[in-house]
């Protein structure tokens, strides 16, 4: 069955620290991967996506993610976090008919 694992449920960082959030997927078809973000009090929104080509994908607000097929991973990174990055981050994989399967999410708290 398709699944997405996010092993870090809560992450606390200081401003300017580097961020890496883990995401591993289990899916046998063509892999399309996503990171969504939900800022406090706001809607879920797309941060970045991977469909094909360059496995290093750049998204909004300085985020990037690297697709490593051999490790079934799609980790999210940011070199230097800001207080405004405090949010919940969800990794997702697209399965049939544009259906998304989400991970359990990682709550990031950035202290100023």
């Amino acid at each position: 069955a398709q699944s997405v694992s996010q092993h870090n449920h809560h992450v606390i960082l200081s401003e300017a620290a580097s961020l890496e959030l883990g995401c591993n997927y289990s899916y046998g078809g063509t892999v399309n991967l996503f990171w969504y973000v939900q800022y406090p009090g706001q809607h879920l929104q797309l941060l970045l996506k991977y469909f094909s080509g360059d496995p290093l994908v750049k998204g909004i607000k300085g985020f990037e993610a690297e697709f490593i097929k051999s490790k079934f991973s799609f980790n999210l990174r940011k070199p230097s976090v800001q207080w405004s990055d405090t949010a919940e981050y969800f990794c997702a994989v697209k399965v049939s008919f544009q259906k998304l399967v989400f991970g359990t999410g990682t709550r990031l708290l950035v202290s100023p």
Partner: protein
Amino acid sequence: EAGVAQSPRYKIIEKRQSVAFWCNPISGHATLYWYQQILGQGPKLLIQFQNNGVVDDSQLPKDRFSAERLKGVDSTLKIQPAKLEDSAVYLCASSLDLFSGSYNEQFFGPGTRLTVL
């Protein structure tokens, strides 16, 4: 551009009562999704519509949940009767067209937070 609208934002009911949620997608979006997000979990797709037809309802508990999109625009999701484990945020999302040949981004609404006592 107006986003996905949902109402109510919050609802508290007692178990065995019924409840309905409403969603108005972004104008022109043919595909509409209802997700259930239980606290501490990621969103789980309940049902997916393309215009007024159901594409996927494999994870919808059909003994108590129902959804419709009669005119292919707005949609309602109903729970009858509600159970304690139905406490969750119910998210609606929409995208341009499921069958356009390319992936269309899903845009999410603010959600309805349901508490069943």
